[in-house]
């Protein structure tokens, strides 16, 4: 039983970055822009989030407030970085996949460059303890208290809150409807007076917002508040894309997909604690491969009935019909 609690407690902080980034990808793709740059956006957000934490960690602020501050910084950083994608993809009508790849390559290189020159290391190391051992009151709820309110990070609750907000914006607002229209049939959307360019900029910016926060939450929940250019976010941006596809571009399904992948990953890193898996004596690297192999298996089975937005990846040209 302890093992199950342990796995759940450790799965959630890993699932949240995946969830947020996949939601970001969903906003971008349902507006019609393929966002393969999520990996870069995450790392960019994580970099500036950690940098801001590094700069204010000396003050006597409460760790959770510092975290919230870092989150805001990373969100802004993510939005700014995503402008590079929307400018190229929407305004310049460039190939979205190539642009995204370039943006993914830029961040780790720039980060290593500056970290090596100014910090003499591969990244930024902070020493604020964001960990929450227990939440008074809620921790005593039988069963659930131990699962969700002990040994965790505040990122879990913020992440779930953002999921709720995203779902409402996506399905219950005029904006959400228009955004989705631009990803399915931009010409039709344009004909009823929706500015496709603006909606696509908005979609990519939201993905920058969520991607930046997701990156920072990865740094907090997975890397203990550190970030470095070599490992980056370890392919979480790409995994989030897989989560998004697995979740069929729908928020609630994305939540379950994120939990599934996070669970696999947590399992991979907790082999030593699970007696029967440990006894199998399989190389740990094999378990690290599992999330990626699972992605492929899932994609192989779901691809036939894929719900991909119809106009994604195609630059919108007013003159074309």
């Amino acid at each position: 039983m302890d093992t199950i609690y342990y796995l759940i407690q450790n799965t959630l902080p890993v699932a949240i970055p995946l969830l947020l980034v996949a939601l970001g990808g969903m906003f971008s793709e349902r507006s019609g822009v393929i966002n393969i740059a999520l990996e870069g956006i995450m790392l960019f957000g994580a970099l500036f989030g950690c940098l801001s934490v590094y700069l204010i960690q000396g003050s006597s602020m409460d760790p959770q407030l510092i975290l919230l501050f870092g989150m805001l910084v990373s969100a802004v950083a993510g939005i700014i970085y995503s402008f590079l994608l929307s400018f190229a993809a929407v305004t310049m009508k460039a190939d979205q996949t190539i642009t995204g790849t370039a943006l993914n390559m830029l961040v780790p290189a720039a980060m290593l460059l500056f970290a090596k020159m100014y910090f003499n290391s591969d990244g930024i190391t902070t020493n604020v303890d964001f960990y929450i051992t227990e939440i008074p009151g809620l921790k005593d709820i039988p069963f659930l208290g131990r699962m969700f309110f002990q040994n965790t990070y505040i990122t879990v609750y913020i992440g779930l809150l953002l999921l709720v907000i995203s779902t409402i914006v996506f399905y219950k607002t005029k904006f959400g409807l228009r955004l989705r229209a631009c990803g399915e049939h931009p010409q039709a959307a344009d004909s009823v007076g929706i500015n496709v360019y603006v909606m696509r900029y908005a979609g990519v910016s939201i993905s920058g917002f969520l991607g930046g926060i997701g990156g920072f939450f990865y740094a907090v929940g997975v890397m203990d508040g550190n970030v470095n250019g070599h490992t980056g976010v370890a392919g979480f941006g790409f995994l989030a894309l897989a989560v998004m596809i697995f979740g069929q571009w729908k928020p609630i399904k994305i939540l379950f997909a994120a939990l599934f992948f996070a669970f696999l990953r947590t399992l991979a890193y907790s082999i030593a604690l699970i007696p029967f898996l440990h006894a199998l004596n399989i190389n740990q690297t094999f378990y690290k491969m599992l999330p990626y192999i699972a992605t492929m298996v899932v994609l192989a089975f779901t691809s036939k009935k894929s719900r991909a937005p119809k106009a994604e990846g195609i630059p919108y040209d007013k003159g074309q019909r």
Partner: protein
Amino acid sequence: MSNNTVSSARKFDFKRLTGSKGFSAFTAALLAIFLGLIFGFIVMLIASPENSAAGFRMVLIGGLKRFGDVLYFATPILMTGLAVGFAFKMGLFNIGASGQYTMGMFFALYVGFMWDLPDSIHWLVCVLAGLVGGMLWGFIPGIFKALLNVNEVITSIMFNYIGMYLVDMLIQGNSVMYIPSKTRTAYLPDAVQLPSLGIKNSNLNISFIIGIVIAIILYVILNKTTFGYELKATGYNKNAAIYAGMNGKRNIILTMVIAGGMAGLGGAFAILAPSTIAGSSMTYEPINVIAPNGFNGIAVALLGNSSPIGIIFSAIFISHIQRGGTLASLYGFKPEIIDVVIAVIIYFSAFAMLMNSTVIKVFKKRKKGRNQENSSGIESTADLNKSKAAIEKEEA
């Protein structure tokens, strides 16, 4: 802007020149390189103003002093560039060159260490093993794309990770290949290493020549064979190609297998090359990092406009500034500066063609001074020229 003053007869020539023979692709690449280098210079200026000029000079011309090294390091990215570019011709984005490269590396290493072969052919068999390894890793995304219609981008990204972890695991588990205390593979026996070309102060080896020959073969395949024609036709318009009776599925798989093979060869060439330390070879460190040469291949392919011949030159260019970047560390800069420059070059080359035609358009508009109606006509002519250029370049 001297072109502003040309006569109307010359203007026609100018238009023809810019609209043909891949000229606009060439200027687009130059534009992207220019912007990338400018960006790199700005970064250097921010990082260390006093050393920026000297450091930037190193980036630009430092590689010339070690041209043998430039070619040596150009070989692997030439191959990954071909891997990306060849798939591009069919409209497939092979972002999985890294995984294919790593697989090729592993297959070559495995044959090099574990198979007992006559000295004279051992290295050749290793190279072929690398080819097979890469082909295998290209085959999988091909199958997924052709039979299950899974986007090749996401598949190849996943297989980058799967391949990297798999190779790390297999190498760590092999006591002949792996030295745990040094966290790297052992040195390959001499007979397995690629024969050196004997250029002074350089380990330039036969792989560079093989690479160029392969690039030329690919050029012939693309331009002189039915398969190449079908491949390009599918790249231009998939539905039209299928309607014309071309076997799309077979071509997708075949393209990915060939592309994967190229990247695999790149990995084999990189790992089988003799290193700078006498009597040693290159080694592989299983540290769970995706091979960057696969991604550099994307830059190489884009700059070379996916043409095998163009890729030869762009590989040498990228390698040249990489060497320059290494030398810039003499002035306190880190070699990562070049990765920044390469990323920016890729970013701009994604829409350099468009910027290029915009620049030309602005030219003509100012020169002709015609009214709005005509300028919209020019716009469509420019677009036409662009697509015409793309087609003619293929044929050239």
